[in-house]
């Protein structure tokens, strides 16, 4: 079935996002995180994933959204970013969604011009719009600073307007 792809949907504030399922290793209830000095605020710290030490990225902070206390909905999505394994915390994981290619639209010109390569496209499902994210562009350690810059409120306002 090439005409559709599977995504893992998740929530951040009021927006729904999704990662391609192949890039997701697992979804966890947040574990103990050791805080790390000398790193940006969107890096929560490091965690022990069965013997492997992985960084935990707070997606809310990466997108410069209001911080939020962890609750029982909060999840850590463990993703494969190249050869790295990186975790990121989201407000909640919604569901696995199958999206057909016709439902996917490329990111609008205005968004792309902002250098948001991490947005792979938009999918219109019923009444909602899901932002499809490109993990390699979003969570690679060398690209996160860029993501933070372009994801600053200015762009979010453009998106919601």
């Amino acid at each position, binding site marked *: 079935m090439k005409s559709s792809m599977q995504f893992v949907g998740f929530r951040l504030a009021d927006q729904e996002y999704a990662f391609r399922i192949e890039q997701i290793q697992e979804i966890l209830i947040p574990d103990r995180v050791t805080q790390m000095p000398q790193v940006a605020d969107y890096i929560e710290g*490091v965690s022990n994933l069965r013997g492997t030490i*992985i960084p935990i990225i707070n997606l809310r902070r990466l997108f410069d959204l209001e911080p939020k206390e962890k609750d029982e909905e909060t999840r850590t999505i463990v993703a494969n970013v190249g050869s*790295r*394994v990186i975790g990121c915390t989201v407000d909640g994981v919604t569901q696995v969604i199958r999206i057909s290619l016709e439902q996917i639209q490329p990111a609008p010109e205005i968004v792309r011009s902002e250098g948001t390569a991490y947005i792979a496209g938009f999918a219109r499902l019923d009444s909602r719009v899901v932002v499809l994210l490109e993990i390699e562009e979003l969570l690679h350690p060398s690209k996160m600073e860029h993501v933070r810059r372009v994801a600053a409120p200015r762009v979010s306002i453009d998106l919601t307007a």
Partner: protein
Amino acid sequence: MTNDTTSSTSEPDSPLSDEMAQYLQVYIDESEEELDGLVEAILKLEGNPLEDESLHKAFRLLHSLKGSSGMLGFEFVGNFAHELEDRFERYRSGELFLDRETTTLVLKCVDYFRMFLGRLRVADLNQGDPANLLHELKEVEHRRSLLAQAPAAPNTPIVPPPITISGGLKLVVRFRPGLQLADLKARLIVSRLSSIGEIIACDPPIDDAQSFDELSLFSLTLVTDRKIEEVRKIANVDGVESIEIRGHEVSAQQLAAIPSPAEPVAPQQSPTQIAAPVNVGSPAIPPPPDVSPPGPLQANPETSDATPQASETLRVDIGRLDRLMNLTGELIVANARFSQIATELSPLFRQSAVFKKSRELTDRLRERFENLRQSLSQPLQTDDAWAQVSQGLEEDLEALDRQSELWAEGYRHFAGISEAVDQLTRVSKNLQRGVLNTRMVPVGPLFNRFKRVIRDLSTERRKQIQLIIRGEKTELDKRMIDALGDPLLHLVRNSIDHGLERPEQRQTAGKPAVGTIILEAAHRGNSVWITVRDDGAGINTDKIRARIVKRGLASPAVAKEMTDAQAIGHIWHPGFSTAETVTEISGRGVGMDIVRNAISDLSGTIEVASSPSVGTTFTIRLPSTLAIIHCLMMRYRNDFFSIPLDDVREIVSIPRVQIHSVHRHVTIDVRGELIPLVSMKGVFKWATIADSSESSVASASRTVNIVVIHSRGKTLGLAVDSLVGRADLVVKTLAENFQPVRGLSGASILGDGAVCLMLDSAALIELAADRTASATFQ
């Protein structure tokens, strides 16, 4: 992530079939070893071109290289090995001579093979083209034969008798029969002759430092522009009966025709030195007399390169060892978890009161019940309901009894588990030690590579250099050995280029003309120290200061105020170089910072000490193994941090009132020594911690726990919330899944599964300096 995924991603993508790749690995490894042996043999032959054993060894190694290359279908490589093999056969038979120029060429051929193998490692099957090298070789041979045969018949490849082939003179020196210490005299003659030309053969090998009980005669071949009579005069020392000289005198013109002028080579390898001192100079300027090799009464030739004892070995892919080591690391972590659980459970069980009490409780319950029954016995005796209740209670009590027994049994089992965990700990520690040992290799081969470097560079830089190698049996993790090659090469090149002076300068300064570079490895506690030392001019601090100013790193006034040590510290600055001219060897302004980074990547440190005209010493300190680091554990907020024990000078607990602020620099007084003090909170940037209310526990208490850290000659006090104790930690790099973080050298997993970050002492001290520097400017 499972281990399997890590390991599979580390395998390079190879266009080759698995089977082929497997053979290739063996081929590459073996060929590299063969090339090492070949270089060793060639360098030995350089001192003595007719030494049979080395000629044979070289021949045999090339033969084997030819065979294996052919077998895998590397036709060019195989054929080229064949050409070389053929030449060594002729060197052996005396048909050709392995003179200095040829040696250089042959070494270049080795480089070709190495390049090929290097490409092969990354699955590049390009064999390159050795045709040029072969052509050069043939050309040299051609010139040699021209020279030997006079210009008459250039096209007839007659095999001339070995006596005249090199165009040199063949001397046969006969001693008086029964002469005492004839070998010593022979050595003397060789050294005298070497000052007027190049000795390309000597039989028996006088420089081999073997003593000959009875030496009635010896012969040597000398290339020189001197007249026969002059040569005879020089060779004629007390005890010589006759000197027979055959061959042609070579005119200066003919000599000049050889592109690389016949350079006089100090012919004798001093046996305690690994590489022979190499004299470089044109024949017109004979080397100064004291260049002649040190004392003739040196003992045995080096034994380090004697073929290693044929112990049984197995070639193992290092990737497998890595995996094994990772697994062992995980085993240790899992084991630590067990130990921790056992430790936590133990008081629970060991307070025998717990189940004694349950027993007591049951007894008391039973007693009460009995009393109750007696007091109520009359009216309720007939009551069925009561009888039932009573029976039920009794059964419950019995059940409770059984539970107590089970508990007691549980305790016995627990004691067993506890013991088993202890045993498991012992076994896994031994296992880990064993696995680590399999990865340990001596530094000898790494050091030996520098013989060639010194040989080539001393020629190029026209300096006389001897290399002394010490502690070559010291073992280090294979990965470290692999990673040390480039940094060491850089340091050695630096010594040659910037450190060691030219022979004339050295003599003016009253030093021996031959400069010395010492490579040494030694165990010191948990570390291995590697030093690169030269007896050169030392680092020129005036030049450094000028450079600091020029690069805008400090004002002239500040630069002038710096101590020598502070000025020298700038060599680690990225892009810092004091070379006056950019040379091929070093001085491109890249290097020292890269060297330092490479060493830090191995969790090591590098320091430099230099004194004018005495020399420069670089000291590299490495953990003896990459896998386990002995640490001090401490706590900051809710997290654990570790610091390598080697970096901890002491631990002090100081009353808060004794912390002084001197001109905004917080310091403590440790036995009269003022040490700058930072806190975990102050020295690092903590972006994630917003709340300042939950400030350090330490600030509430009256005394402060301080870890005094020292690294690279600097000292720093670090205030922590609490000290936890020491631990042996398996350290993983943060770069594996993230990126390096300044101030941290890695992370470990503790027994309870928490992640503990390891502090990088050197970086911490730098961070502290940055912080205070910026604070004073504000």
